[in-house]
């Protein structure tokens, strides 16, 4: 199959799934489930095919002109395919989880239709070959996530949806203006054509600096950089699979990925360093890491705590970018994948506690480890990984960040990392303590807020399997970090082949 067709097929898998789901009647439960899972598997296969092809030197690209001097470009490069691989893998699990989670609830057709559109946009973001194409899918992602955020239709959900739109649509406009200004300045820049901006006249440099921060402000909203993070904790009212999706795969990652593209593929890391942009990024990231962790510590409910933890963890990616060195870059790229795996696990588990036992508050979790051992084990793996304990993948992110900081000559970043890890421990360890060591209803103390026996296992199998699977992935990816095609190895390969500063 030629390169362009394969790209298009990957993108259309999700688009056609969305279309078909909208056409199927609401009650066609089996057909919809089959379609969802089938499409997720096909997409994963196609992306795996491209990963294999890329590693053997094949090229995948497709483009056509839209305006004079501006084209719609899809292109699979090592970095993009890495993000595509993450999203297709996690999508499979999130789909399974969502099918179990939404069993017997209304409006499932609408949910899964927009869910598939969301996958399509995320894939488009990862395969976009220039800023114009990136923006198209980035905005499409905003539109397709709104119905998911307000899915429950309650006043609170609708209010959260309003806040979400206010942030993301404004950011989209800021982004669009920044991109157009860059286009006016330098024409259509394909990702990877770093020499265009580097070759501009020196008197254009202040303008470039200004535009960089405009674009970062645009991406920073979705990446939930402080002070642009306000929408994220509020969007927690959405159903658990949507939260998993917003936090681990689609929305925040799209923002972080945009920053990666901007720094490495449009400005180029050397120009960014020359213009003094990276120091600013490190500062923003450090503030976000600490602020997010502190706010997480103050939360009494599980999902908001995880939400603020996301704010803090995604900023690690930005921190890694800012460190200007191969190790920092490896940390940034691999954390893009690692955080996804761990965070999706944590959200699946939070959803399981809420569905099976009605638990939303952290102090209701006492003794839940005995009632739901597998879920609690998965949660433990995710939490320890977030703290940065080996052999979970989170350790490698922090290790490379730390060594990268030393390499970059910014030892104070180590202090930020240590403080953040301590804070991570401070907000995750008490949860683990409650899960495993405090007596709870299964020990005869008190009772669960709202217990439902959803299955023969500790909870519905469709809810349990994805949580355990992603937890296993985060463990195995850590244990086998040196093997080919592990996230860390692929990130290193990307850095070595393309991005070595």
């Amino acid at each position, binding site marked *: 199959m030629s390169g362009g067709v394969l790209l298009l097929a990957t993108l259309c898998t999700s688009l056609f799934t969305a279309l078909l789901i*909208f056409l199927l009647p609401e009650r066609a439960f089996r057909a919809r489930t089959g379609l969802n899972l089938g499409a997720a598997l096909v997409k994963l296969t196609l992306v795996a095919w491209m990963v294999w092809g890329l590693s053997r030197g094949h090229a995948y690209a497709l483009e*056509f002109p839209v305006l*004079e001097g*501006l084209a719609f470009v899809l292109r699979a490069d090592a970095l993009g395919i890495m993000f595509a691989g993450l999203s297709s893998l996690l999508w499979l699990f999130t789909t399974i989880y969502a099918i179990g989670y939404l069993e017997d609830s209304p*409006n499932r057709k609408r949910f899964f239709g927009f869910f598939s559109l969301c996958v399509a946009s995320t894939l488009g973001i990862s395969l976009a070959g220039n800023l114009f194409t990136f923006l198209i899918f980035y905005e*499409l992602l905003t539109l397709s996530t709104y119905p998911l955020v*307000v899915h429950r239709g309650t006043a609170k959900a609708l209010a959260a949806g309003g806040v979400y739109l206010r942030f993301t649509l*404004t950011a989209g406009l800021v982004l669009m203006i920044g991109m157009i200004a860059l286009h006016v300045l330098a024409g259509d820049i394909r990702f990877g054509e770093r020499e265009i901006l580097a070759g501009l006249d020196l008197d254009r440099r202040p303008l470039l600096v200004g535009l960089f921060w405009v674009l970062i402000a645009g991406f920073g909203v979705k990446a939930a950089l402080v002070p642009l993070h306000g929408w994220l904790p509020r969007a927690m009212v959405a159903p658990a699979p949507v939260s998993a999706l917003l936090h681990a795969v689609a929305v925040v990652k799209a923002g972080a990925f945009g920053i990666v593209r901007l720094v490495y593929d449009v400005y180029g890391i050397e120009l960014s360093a020359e213009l003094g942009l990276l120091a600013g990024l490190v500062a923003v990231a450090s503030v976000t890491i600490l602020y997010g962790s502190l706010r997480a510590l103050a939360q009494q409910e599980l999902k908001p705590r995880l939400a603020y933890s996301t704010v803090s963890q995604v900023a690690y990616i930005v921190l890694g970018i800012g460190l200007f060195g191969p190790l920092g870059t490896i940390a940034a790229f691999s954390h893009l994948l690692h955080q996804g795996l761990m965070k999706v696990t944590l959200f699946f588990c939070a959803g399981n506690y809420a569905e099976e036992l009605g638990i939303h508050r952290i102090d209701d979790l006492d003794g839940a480890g005995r009632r739901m051992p597998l879920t609690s084990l998965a949660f433990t793996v995710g939490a320890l990984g977030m703290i940065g304990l080996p052999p979970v993948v989170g350790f490698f992110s922090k290790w490379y960040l730390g060594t990268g900081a030393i390499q970059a000559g910014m030892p104070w970043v180590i202090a930020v990392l240590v403080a953040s890890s301590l804070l991570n421990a401070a907000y995750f360890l008490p949860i683990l303590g409650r899960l495993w060591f405090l007596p709870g209803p299964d020990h005869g103390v008190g009772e669960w807020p709202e217990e439902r026996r959803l299955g023969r296992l500790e909870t519905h199998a469709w809810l349990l399997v994805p949580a355990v699977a992603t937890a296993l992935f985060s463990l195995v990816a850590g244990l086998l970090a040196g093997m080919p095609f592990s996230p860390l190895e692929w990130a290193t390969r990307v850095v070595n082949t393309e991005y070595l500063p």
Partner: protein
Amino acid sequence: MSVLSAVPLAAETAVLWVALLIPSLLGLLAWRFPPQRMRPLLLVITPLPLATFWLLHRVAMGGELEGVWSLGELLLYWRLDGLRGLLLLLTQLLLLASATYAVGHRRAIAVAERTFAGFWPLLGGLATALGIIWVAADLLTLYVALELMGLCAVGMMLLPGKQAALVAGMRYLLYALVGSLAWLLGVALLLGVSGRLDLSGLAATTQPGTVTSIAMALLAAGLLLKAAIFPLHGWLAPVHASAWTPVSALHGALVVKASFFILMQLWQRLVPEAVAAAWLLGLLGSMAVVWGGLQAWRAQALKQVVAWSTVGQLGYLMLAFPLLAGTSAAVATLAWQATWLQLAAHAMAKAAMFMAAGNLVLAAGEGRLTDLAGTSRQLPFPLMTFGIAAVTLMGLPPSAGFTAKWLLLQAAILAGQWLWVAVLVAGTLLSAAYVFRVLRCAFVEDATRQEVQPLPAGMNLIALLLALAALGLGLGADWPLALIRAGGMP
């Protein structure tokens, strides 16, 4: 661009005039024998856009077509270039959509066949008038077509026969007549100065001066009135409140744009360098964007939201004037393409949105926003159509509204006219605000809902296809924009 020949090719000319006049004949035929089903209508009208497609193909190959018709002493000029051909194609597609939709609409609102029959000749006349406006190249033909269009439009607005429709329709007529009066005065002045009425002749002979300025001001005032540009938009929202949906769709999509098109033609030929006046028009457009957006945000009834959004969206078109006057060729090319792409995007999306809103109101039996609660479950099809059309109106990707906004922003930034960037930002945010206010109501879950009335499937399908066309034009803009660049630039 070379003209095909001094005497235009006979086949092309014949096809053009047949394509222009056929709608009127079909309308008269349908008056006598009202169509009962959608499919035959589809078959009868489809050859029209196909013929225009062929004409566009010929124009793309060999340049522009122009010609003169002499009626005794009178010389009537016409021309067909890429832009005009595309507008004709757009008109025919929308005619096709609204005629087909009207068949289902008549059944759904249960109006007597005889009462509705008057719709058809008026629709045919409107389509012919619009077609002539796109190809006419002298002020007399334009005047006749403009009047024909206005009268047909007023007639269609009056058709429902209700008190509100009569009041709004008569007010529309009054405004249109005042507009025509201003236009006639302007034409008379120009005729006195240069002694001719054809556009290219006027462009060649008219000298900038007081009389030209006054004439242009009169012409502009008349056209702005007919185009419902702020602050002369007062008649627009009331007529849509009581008009039938297919009428609103065609009116909001094309009728108001025809006046804009004429204004643009005259401006480019008579006063292309009048920067201050162009900025004034741009400012009027900016106020239209803001005011229309605010009113749409405040409106209580669904159709009013859609009608007020037209006022705002027309404002975007007016930004073309300052971006075309006294700017570099690069800016002008960008703004020129942006304007027509925006016009086409808005035409299709607005027609789709009126139809979707009409379907929602008909099916739910209620016209207020708050009554839409829970429709996302019961009426997903029209709501989805509304949403897709709204993507174009908000200018979000991948719609044609987005591509047009990209071009417009690029032009404004390149020209350093940052005011228009601010206007576009405000307009986008306002349109998002009123669109999501509607969608938000539809997502409310805890509402009691009565039964919904089933509608013919075709009504939903036509609206959806139009909305998708506006969406698809965004990434498929290369072909029409290339045609526009090749011919029709002032």
